[in-house]
């Protein structure tokens, strides 16, 4: 049996399960069972799948596809045209394996906490979560840039759905804002993609690189530059870097905790996927790296300083998540093998830690039904175990050894010094300290200061599954912190291929 | 020759639709650029896309917007 077909299963399984769950209305038990089974299987598939590529419809390039090439004139089969990919191609290697595994883990715990925290789990919400995961897996795997765009639009709609379903005050307004802004940025991203198509005549990234490298296309042509700038703009929208940081952090804060955990994982992995494509296509242009670094530095500074000014703890986390995205961008922008490895490693760490924080602080929302830090306090006495776990998550985010972000941030600083830009290392250290301060401010106001009289703590017990999820995230953090080579060894191949 | 007329109709139709004060008129006028773009697609050697665009651009989009306008108009009158 051809195990490469499992690459397609990674996308088909969550979509099929999502569509099926959507049909089941009010059958709570069935929904629970199916959702849990799918969520358990999701992280396992990438571990079983062998590395390789999958051609949809079996359309191999003509050079390897003798039945299709039969009878075609030499103008097609004899030239480079026969090397081009005909259908949609998915590439699966060790880096994709790790990232989809982590995405699957986060999806699993999001579904797990969602099912146990809500009394009547709705199939539609699970549909949205699975749909998002499926499209993100496709974005990570796809070598076809238009396929990426389609799944990207699906992911955006799924995010809007998650926000609409949350039931938090003013969530409809946020959803409408996000979708309106997405309707400006999405078509412009598509415009960039089709400009690439117009210049190279292809939508497959490998083929486009082939065309650019082999002189079929003038690398300095203005249309190519326009495509680069429009795709960069779409990348900013997709990952929530400035000027999209306000809307993205608002989206995080208006989703339920498990939804927010998943949405931020979506942003992180879209940033990685599209960022890698930009670097693969345009690394011949030195300005690409400068622009990525510049945008990332702005994202870090704006995200973290704005986080300090907020009073809603979900908004604080949202802005901190945006600030952390800047670290990943810097890793990609440095352009050295070490830098890109560090950036990808930081992406994995950040998606885990931020999910950890969102779900951890989500217990406060579960207990008190408020997220305003002005009204909160004294949660330490209500729930000391969760408080300890959240504190550890904050330490991890700030980069305290032996937790995982320490390793990736150390690598990032080493990479920046190696590339002759020690200033970036200094900024990163400075902003890490401020991140920790911001986190401690939120932690103090929510957990440590005396409880305000008006605050009512509901009597419902925090489900065991939430605690289990938090502990599992902590275990991942410690494992990656103590043995970073587990992650870096699988990321190195991809990073080395990008230089 | 016909294509230049269509292009002018498209741009002018878009501007006129946005300049309407009455939202219902604006919604229905949205169909004009939609249809002329469909004809342009036909001219630009894309007959299958032209069919889709003719349905979506001339029927679905204006009707959706018009329904929204009608429904929102009702609530606005109620509040007044």
């Amino acid at each position, binding site marked *: 049996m051809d195990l490469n077909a499992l690459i397609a299963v990674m996308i088909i399984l969550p979509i099929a399960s999502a569509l099926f769950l959507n049909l089941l209305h009010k059958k709570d038990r069935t929904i629970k069972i199916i959702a849990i089974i799918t969520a358990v299987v999701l992280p396992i598939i990438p571990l079983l799948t062998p590395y390789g590529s999958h051609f949809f419809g079996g359309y191999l390039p003509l050079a390897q596809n003798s039945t299709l090439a039969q009878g075609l004139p030499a103008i097609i089969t004899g030239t480079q045209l026969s090397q081009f990919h005909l259908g949609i191609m998915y590439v699966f290697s060790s880096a994709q394996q790790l990232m989809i595994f982590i995405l699957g883990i986060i999806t699993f715990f999001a579904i797990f906490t969602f099912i146990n925290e809500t009394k009547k789990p709705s199939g539609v919400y699970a549909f949205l979560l699975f749909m998002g995961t499926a499209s993100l897996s496709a974005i990570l795997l796809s070598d076809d840039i238009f396929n990426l765009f389609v799944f990207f639009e699906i992911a955006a709609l799924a995010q809007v759905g998650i926000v609409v379903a949350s039931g938090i005050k003013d969530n409809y307004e946020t959803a409408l804002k996000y979708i309106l802004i997405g309707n400006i940025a999405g078509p412009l991203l598509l415009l960039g993609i089709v400009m690439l198509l117009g210049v190279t005549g292809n939508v497959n990234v490998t083929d486009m690189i082939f065309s650019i490298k082999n002189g079929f296309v003038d690398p300095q042509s203005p249309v190519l530059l326009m495509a680069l700038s429009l795709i960069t703009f779409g990348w900013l929208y997709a990952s929530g870097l400035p*000027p999209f940081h306000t809307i993205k952090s608002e989206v995080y804060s208006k989703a339920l905790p498990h939804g927010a955990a998943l949405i931020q994982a979506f942003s992180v992995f879209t940033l990685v996927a599209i960022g890698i494509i930009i670097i693969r296509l345009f690394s011949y242009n030195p*300005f690409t790296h*400068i622009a990525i670094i510049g945008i990332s530095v702005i994202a870090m500074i704006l995200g973290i300083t704005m986080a300090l000014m907020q009073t809603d703890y979900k908004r604080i986390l949202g802005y901190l998540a945006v600030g952390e995205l800047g670290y990943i961008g810097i890793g990609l922008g440095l352009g050295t093998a070490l830098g890109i490895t560090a950036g990808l490693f930081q992406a994995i760490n950040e998606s885990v830690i931020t999910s950890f924080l969102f779900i951890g602080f989500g217990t406060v929302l579960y207990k008190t039904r408020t997220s305003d830090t002005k009204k909160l306090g004294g949660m330490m006495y209500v729930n000391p175990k969760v408080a300890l776990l959240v504190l550890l998550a904050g330490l991890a985010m700030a980069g305290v050894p032996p937790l995982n972000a320490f390793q990736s941030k150390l690598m990032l600083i080493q990479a920046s010094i190696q590339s002759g830009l020690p200033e970036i290392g200094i900024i990163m250290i400075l902003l890490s300290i401020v991140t920790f301060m911001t986190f401690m401010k939120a932690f103090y106001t929510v957990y440590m200061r005396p409880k305000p009289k008006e605050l009512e703590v509901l009597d419902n017990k925090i489900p065991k599954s939430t605690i289990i999820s938090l502990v599992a995230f902590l275990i991942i953090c410690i494992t990656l912190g103590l043995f970073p080579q587990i992650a870096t060894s699988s990321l190195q191949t991809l990073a080395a291929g990008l230089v | 020759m016909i294509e230049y007329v269509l292009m002018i109709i498209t741009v002018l139709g878009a501007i006129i639709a946005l300049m309407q004060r009455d939202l219902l008129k604006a919604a229905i006028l949205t169909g004009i650029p939609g249809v002329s773009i469909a004809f342009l697609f036909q001219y630009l050697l894309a007959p299958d896309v032209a069919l889709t665009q003719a349905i979506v651009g001339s029927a679905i989009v204006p009707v959706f917007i018009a329904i929204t306008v009608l429904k929102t108009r009702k609530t606005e009158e109620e509040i007044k």
Partner: protein
Amino acid sequence: MREVQKKAEEDQPITNITASAMLAAELTLIASVLVAVIMVRLIHPVLMIIMIAAVLIIAVMARPIMPRLRKEQNDDLNNMMFYIVVALGIVVALFYWGNLNV
């Protein structure tokens, strides 16, 4: 009426935490921008010195920056759209300029 409401919102008691947070944010902003400007040395050292001086002067003149920055980055849709279109212009212009000059 609305102005009065706005004033009432602004006049909320500023606690120690918000004040110190604002101060810290301001210091962070200035410090990190200063360090980031040092990277201009790769283009030209004299330009770096001029830019550092400019940033320092702006920081002193426009103090306090943070409340203004906070007010600019609100959740108003029109505001967001404006910044997004400005950013689009900046990105496109920068890539053209950057490719000609770097």
